[in-house]
C-alpha cells in the first residue's frame, strides 16, 4: 500500500493505493494522525487506487474522521471503487462519511 499527501489550499489530500488490511492500515492511520496533529483537519482520502479494504481500513477511517471532526474539520472520501464501497456500506459508513465521486468535488465541498 502507498500513501501520498498533497496540500490543496486548506485541504490535505491523502491518496491511497493498494490494499488496506491489518498489516498496512497502521501506515494510513499514521498519515492521518500526522496531518491532524499539524492542524490540517480538512482531509480528503482519495481512494481511487484502493482495490481492497478489510475492517482494519474502517478503523483507520473512523479514527481519522472522529479526530478531525472533534477539531472542527472532517474526513471526506473520494473515488471509491465498487467492492470497497460495498464494505463501507455494509458497515454503515456511507451514512456517516461524506463520499464524493472525485477529489475535486470533495475539496470543493469544504469551501461551500
Amino acid at each position, binding site marked *: 500500500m502507498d500513501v501520498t499527501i498533497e496540500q490543496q489550499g486548506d485541504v490535505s489530500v491523502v491518496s491511497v493505493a493498494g490494499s488496506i*488490511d*491489518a498489516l498496512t492500515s497502521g501506515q494510513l492511520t499514521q498519515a492521518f494522525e500526522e496531518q491532524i496533529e499539524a492542524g490540517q483537519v480538512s482531509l480528503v482520502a482519495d481512494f481511487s487506487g484502493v482495490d481492497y479494504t478489510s475492517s482494519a481500513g474502517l*478503523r483507520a477511517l473512523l*479514527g481519522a*474522521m472522529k479526530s478531525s*471532526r472533534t477539531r472542527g474539520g472532517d474526513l471526506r472520501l473520494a473515488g471509491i471503487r465498487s467492492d470497497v464501497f460495498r*464494505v463501507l456500506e*455494509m458497515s*454503515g459508513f456511507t451514512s456517516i462519511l461524506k463520499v464524493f465521486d472525485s477529489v475535486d468535488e470533495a475539496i470543493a465541498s469544504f469551501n461551500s
Partner: protein
Amino acid sequence: MLDHDRLELDATLENIPRFRAFVEDACACGGASTDDCFAIKLAVDEVCTNIIEHGYGPDHHGAISLTVEISDGEIRVAVVDNGRPFAPEEAPVPDVEAPWQDRPIGGLGWHLIRKMVDDIRYQTDGAENRLTLVKKFAETSGPGNEQERKNGCDD
C-alpha cells in the same frame, strides 16, 4: 474443476495477503463471480487476522491452514489453527446505524464475516479450532476458460 486445495503458513500479518490471494484464486478458478470471490476473500482475511491478533496473540506462534473445497455451487473454506478458541457467536453485534459519535473504533470484523458468507461452522476440541466459511455462488463461467488458464487453474 478445482475441488480441493490447501495452504498452511505461519500465523503472521505478513502472510495475510497470501491467504487472501490463495482463496481468491481458488474461488475464481471455481467459476464464481468477482463479487463472490471478494466476499469470501474478505471473510477469510478477517478470520485469519482475528486468529493472529487474538487467537495466538503477540506471545504465541503457530500456523493457520486453509482448505478450499468447491462443489455444488458453493465454496467452503476451512480455517484451522491451534490458538485460543473463540466461538463466533460470542462476537458482539455492532450498531451500524449509530451516529458517528457513538461508533466504537473497531469491532467490525465479525460483522463483515457474517455479511459476506452464507454459513459459519465452528468446531474446537480446545487444542485445534476449525472454522468453516460457506459462500454460495452462481457459476458465471465454466472452469478451464481462457482467463482461468491464464491464472494457472489447470495446475
